[in-house]
């Protein structure tokens, strides 16, 4: 069984959205879950969050940023091509219920991952405040889709080309300082680069607002068999693929997560360079 690409769209200079056929995932998916793809026989297994599903046509939508060999190779595929393997949905769904007031923070491709969660939380009658951030305006994805679902949406860019000039965590700090005393927040969900999630956890920790982060550790099988996604939460070893990917951000050892993400950096750079050499058109 392969997974034909039904649709492809470029969202920003290095971000793409694809819809692929995968009935078995579409039928079971809940927000917060991911799939693991293997593009072809020689590919590695890469985890990607499912951002949307269409159960009637049996497709799932994935949004990915080109950061290395596999995502670049994926970006060379288009409608009519197929992905060899897709296993999922993996991981635990986000806890969705009526919390009251929630803040969803998405940074970079984390915006893609937070999108289905915003929708689910809005559907569960929460007041959703979204904060989206990226390096620059062009990289800010899904602004329109998310602001439609949110009660209020704030934007920020590192270079100030749109919204707040700076980091999402500064916006978050500001909102909490202004509103938390009078209209408290019940929950905050942050997804993005681990450095950003760590900073967000530092912002919310002193005000004791339950904060959830989704960890993008390196993964291989995604079913609890290799242990490469291990991470420490409150001092206990957890596996991001089966115990997560979401954890209490105040208890995650983000420094460990950040460090382990660079374990294969040298090899990844080598693979990327090699691939670009072989595909000069890219």
């Amino acid at each position, binding site marked *: *069984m392969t997974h034909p690409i039904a649709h492809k769209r470029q969202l920003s200079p290095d971000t793409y959205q694809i819809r692929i056929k995968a009935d*078995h*995932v579409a039928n*079971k998916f809940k927000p917060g879950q991911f799939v693991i793809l*293997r593009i072809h026989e*020689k*590919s*590695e*297994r890469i985890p990607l969050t499912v951002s949307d599903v269409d159960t009637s046509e049996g497709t799932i939508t994935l949004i990915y940023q080109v950061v290395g*060999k*596999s995502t670049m190779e994926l970006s060379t595929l288009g409608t009519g091509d197929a992905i*060899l*393997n*897709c*296993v*999922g*949905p*993996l991981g635990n769904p986000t806890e969705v219920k009526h919390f009251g007031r929630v803040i969803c923070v998405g940074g970079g491709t984390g915006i893609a991952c937070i999108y289905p969660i915003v929708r689910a939380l809005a559907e569960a009658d929460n007041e959703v405040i979204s904060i989206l951030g990226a390096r620059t305006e062009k990289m800010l994805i899904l602004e329109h889709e998310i602001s439609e679902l949110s009660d209020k949406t704030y934007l920020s860019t590192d270079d100030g080309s749109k919204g707040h000039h700076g980091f999402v965590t500064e916006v978050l700090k500001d909102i909490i300082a202004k509103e938390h005393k009078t209209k408290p927040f019940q929950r905050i969900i942050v997804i993005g680069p681990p450095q950003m999630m760590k900073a967000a956890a530092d912002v919310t920790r002193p005000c004791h607002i339950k904060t959830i982060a989704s960890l993008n550790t390196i993964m*291989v*099988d995604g*079913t*609890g*068999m*290799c*242990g*490469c996604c*291990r*991470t*420490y939460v409150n001092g206990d*070893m957890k596996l991001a693929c*089966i115990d997560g990917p979401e954890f209490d951000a105040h208890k995650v*050892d983000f420094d*460990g997560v950040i*460090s*382990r993400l*660079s*374990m*294969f950096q*040298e*090899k*990844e750079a*080598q*693979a990327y360079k*090699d691939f670009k050499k072989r595909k000069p058109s890219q």
Partner: protein
Amino acid sequence: MIKLGGTRVPMREQKPEERIKNFKSVPLGYSEEEVIKEAQRCIQCKGLPCETECPINMKILEMIREIANRNFKRAFFIIKEDNPIPAITGRVCPQENQCEGVCPPYKRGHGINIGKLEAFVADWAREKGIKEEFHIKKTPEKVAVIGSGPAGISCAVDLRKFGFQVTMYEALHKAGGVLQYGIPAFRLPTEVVDYEIQYLDEIGVDIKLNFFVGQNIKFNELREEFDAIFLATGAGAPFFMDIEGESLKGVYSANEFLIRVNLMKAYKFLDFDTPIVCKGPVGIIGAGNVAMDAARCALRLGVEKVYILYRRTKKQSPARDEEIQHALEEGMLLKELISPKKFVGDEDGWLKEVELFQMELGEADKSGRPRPIKIEGSEFRLKMNTIVEALGSMPNRLFLSRAPELEVNKWGQIKVDHNLMTNIKGVYAGGDAIRGNATVILALGDGRKAAQSIRKYISSKSRS
């Protein structure tokens, strides 16, 4: 003194200095003349101790007789009556503790090489395209087999022979379980495993890859859809030491290390995408088959210094004799009576040293082996840039958490009765899922036994 049985026909092998540069099979296999000569050494003991000790009581003597008479085809069909995957068991069974260990000339180091005879016949049949063919009378009952390791494979084959509609679910993208992702190709060539999987396909087993039961499909949905279920989910979740420094870069579980190397082919990096970083010196913790496999993979990744760090001594190693022998020939170094206390990293978070306790051996424990005891104050450090923890593994807790109605023991092993039925009617289990880290042949035996039980269960159900 007469030397019963004479001396063993030596197995030709790739030379150590050559083979550590490739992942091809180390033994080169017997030739027809050699295999016949080896078979002719059998002294046809009364009582057939070899058959008694084989966990599936294979008809070894009959096989040997046919081989000695150059009737390889007949030998093949005799083996197949009991053993659906002889090319595999012949290569990986711990023969010295089973069939071969009780063969009289074994005491002199010259037991009949039963495993290699078995593998020869199976390879011969594969090369000649000779397969066991059977007429499948169709029955409407449907059975699900979860997991595609040796337990799942052997159960599926028998269930098809009984005529049931069999669907096999496998979480990974390739079928075979440990045979595929764990045991390296230089010990068990990939084409040997692939051939058995292809055979499943040919006899009509519907193999669904990339399906994790519990996640893709709910266990309850399966129970509704199928008349019976066989759980052959193995024990694939690694144990960790749970000591300081375990999240350092350079520290792997044996499962991650072997999955990257074998299943994902990281040893062909750049042609294949999955990377592995394996800088020497490498320390492997543990001394079983898994540890030997990891050590030998590390040597093949070009590392010069690969150490087994073992808390007991070589004598107590649970690995197959052949594995230890091969690993030592290839340059693996053994450090006995030591056990890690913590891993020490550099400023970039990479492993650089291991702090270890010196150990001593005490009284025998439950496994019959002397218990290793820490010597307090004996700590010392060794420079290590890679650590692979081969401490054993346990059943997958994700699956168990998705099937909470299943009864398990405190190690997460699924509880079964003497028919291999779990506490849920119509749901059977076998292999590592009920035993923890056991062997291919025990998993295979369970698969066959479960198939029988399932047949009885289904026929009693249809009568009532």
